[in-house]
């Protein structure tokens, strides 16, 4: 009872937690921040967008003056050829595309976790079979197979697309997660929990999977990216429910009715830019997360310039004496030959006080024998 009376600001643990959360956001690389904010905007648009559409996206206004009208006050993104409001279509389209991508992401990522973890943990023949299956579906190009599958379906609705995309979206994640599980499997804490008599499924669910959460998150983001790109491409070819408004079907109709040729950029550009921004936000988020985990990939903002070379704090002390070598394209080609590793002959000792230009002149004339 008394705990509820204490003001929140006085609770030291809550304060520390708040600071920590703020700290994590601060530690995020710029790329991840931009990606997260951008993605948040799209999620917001997907959630509240369909509720605030100014018009019914399918309503065809028969007024001839409203056919392909450029953006104005009442039609913020203009109208299509049949007088439909582009902004309403876009808002509904973001929702439908996002919904599809997230569902595919969840289903396909769950499949990859199940396959990847069980392949690595069960080992033996299970591992062989599961790895083989995921590798086979990795080399078979996905889009032609998707086209074939959807081409045979009489109803090409949202559900069919989700099923087919999930069915083909898991192998990459499974492969990555299998590799990670192999690495974790032999750690001491797994051995310890096995010794204490934990059941296999408990070890998998509570010891292994939580340790791979960052990898699973990355795999989820990648799958969502794949689902957005592929579903939009499939809709563009006409392999989708063309009566619903996804970003892909918007592009299909815009292309079908020659929006670009007729100069109706407001009809054609918004769905394409929306897809591009959604994709870019996911890529940024993913590279940002990558950089958080791998400090080497982070921007070398603390690098300093010494003797014309960019040096980071982790680099070795610069050595200003250089060895004889070739230049430019020749050096590049030569570096692939077997002999290149044998003919490293040091050049005459480099004098610290000599200017750099002079040293390269010496280099080309004199060779240390």
């Amino acid at each position, binding site marked *: 009872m008394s705990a509820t009376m204490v003001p929140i600001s006085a609770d030291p643990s809550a304060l520390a937690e708040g600071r920590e959360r703020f700290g994590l956001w601060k530690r995020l690389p710029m790329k991840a921040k931009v990606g997260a904010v951008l993605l948040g905007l799209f999620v917001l648009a997907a959630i509240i967008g369909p509720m605030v559409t100014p018009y019914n996206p399918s309503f065809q206004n028969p007024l001839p003056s409203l056919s392909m009208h450029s953006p104005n006050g009442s039609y913020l993104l203009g109208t299509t050829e049949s007088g439909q409001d582009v902004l309403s279509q876009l808002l509904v389209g973001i929702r439908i595309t996002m919904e599809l991508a997230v569902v595919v992401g969840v289903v396909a990522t769950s499949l990859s976790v199940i396959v990847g973890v069980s392949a690595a943990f069960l080992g033996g023949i299970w591992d062989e079979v599961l790895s083989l299956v995921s590798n086979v579906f990795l080399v078979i190009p996905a889009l032609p197979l998707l086209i074939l*599958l959807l081409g045979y379906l009489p109803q090409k609705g949202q559900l069919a697309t989700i099923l087919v995309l999930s069915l083909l979206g898991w192998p990459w994640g499974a492969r990555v997660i299998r590799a990670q599980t192999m690495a974790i499997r032999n750690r001491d804490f797994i051995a310890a929990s096995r010794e204490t008599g934990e059941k296999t499924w408990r070890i998998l669910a509570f010891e292994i999977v939580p340790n791979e959460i960052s990898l699973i998150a990355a795999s989820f983001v990648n799958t969502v990216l794949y689902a957005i790109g592929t579903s939009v491409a499939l809709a563009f070819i006409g392999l989708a429910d063309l009566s619903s408004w996804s970003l892909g079907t918007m592009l299909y109709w815009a292309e079908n009715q020659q929006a670009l040729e007729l100069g109706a950029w407001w009809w054609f550009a918004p769905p394409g830019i929306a897809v591009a921004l959604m994709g870019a936000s996911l890529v940024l988020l993913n590279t940002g997360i990558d950089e958080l985990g791998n400090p080497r*990939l982070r921007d070398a903002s603390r690098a300093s310039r010494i003797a014309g070379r960019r040096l*980071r704090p982790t680099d070795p002390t610069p050595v200003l004496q250089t060895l004889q070598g070739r230049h430019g394209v020749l050096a590049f080609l030569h570096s692939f030959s077997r002999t290149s590793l044998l003919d490293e002959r040091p050049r005459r000792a480099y004098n610290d006080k000599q200017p750099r230009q002079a040293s390269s002149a010496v280099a080309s004339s004199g060779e240390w024998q």
Partner: protein
Amino acid sequence: MAFVVRRLVFYVVAAWVALTVNFFIPRAMPGSAVQDIMSKFPNLQPSAYKALEAMLGVGHPGSLWHQYTTYLDDVFHLNFGTDVIEYPAKVSTLLAQTIPWTLTLVGTATVIAFFLGTGLGILAGWRHGGWLDRVLPGLMFIQAIPYFFLALLLLDFLALNHHIFPIGQGYGYGLIPGWHWSFISSAIYHSLLPAFTIVITSVAGWMLQMRNVMITTIGEDYVLAAQAKGLRSHRVVFTYAARNAILPQLQGFGLALGFVVSGAIIMEIVFSYPGIGLLLFNAVTSDDYPLMQAIFLVITFTVLLANLIVDLVIVFVDPRVRARGGT
């Protein structure tokens, strides 16, 4: 050698899976070519069903096993049946007309993109934090743009409005394909813009991967040793770092090929380029099932073959693979 054998077995299995999937899809899915024709011509008698099946060679006589072996035999002899839409034409003839276009254009553009991206990735990795790193988010944005959207914008801007490039098609109107200069020059001219789109959309991916591997490789001890020896920086970059960093890149090349092929299909649709992607699109829009299936097999087998070639290159380049004899 053991590695090569292992990979060969793997590709044979992959090819068999593709063949089997291709065999079962039409049998598991509703809808068929014959039903399609029947619905297009409502005055056909129901008895025409069997006749149509026999004409198109899509009937399923005999047991499933018998059908399966006949199917494998047909594919082995490159007999993909008769086309439904362009009726008397054999599917294999249609394929033979379109494959060279796609292979030349997509192959060249992909190789260019791979080398360009890898080169830029080496630079970006070495000059970490330099200007190449700063344009990277921009490249990522370009990569995230749907392929066909960018292609359409470029087509509209460069071909329709400014007439710098021709508007789609594989060669000029009225030219007869053959080995003479007027045709070849026209074909090259028509392939420039499609090739450019493939390069610009796929270069960022290669670059990003190469950059990340480069940065990790540069942290290795042997690179440190090379720097400590006082080697010139370009020598450290190319001989020590890039040479090792390029191996994951090569392995990625085989797998990324599927994505490149997918992009190329869309590209051909946008540019009405007379390749296999446009053929697939036409097959889809006209419910031409036998053609769709044959194209799926051709694309898959090409990708598998390319993967095999990449594996052989890896064996040649990476002595560790030869020594270990397998992955």
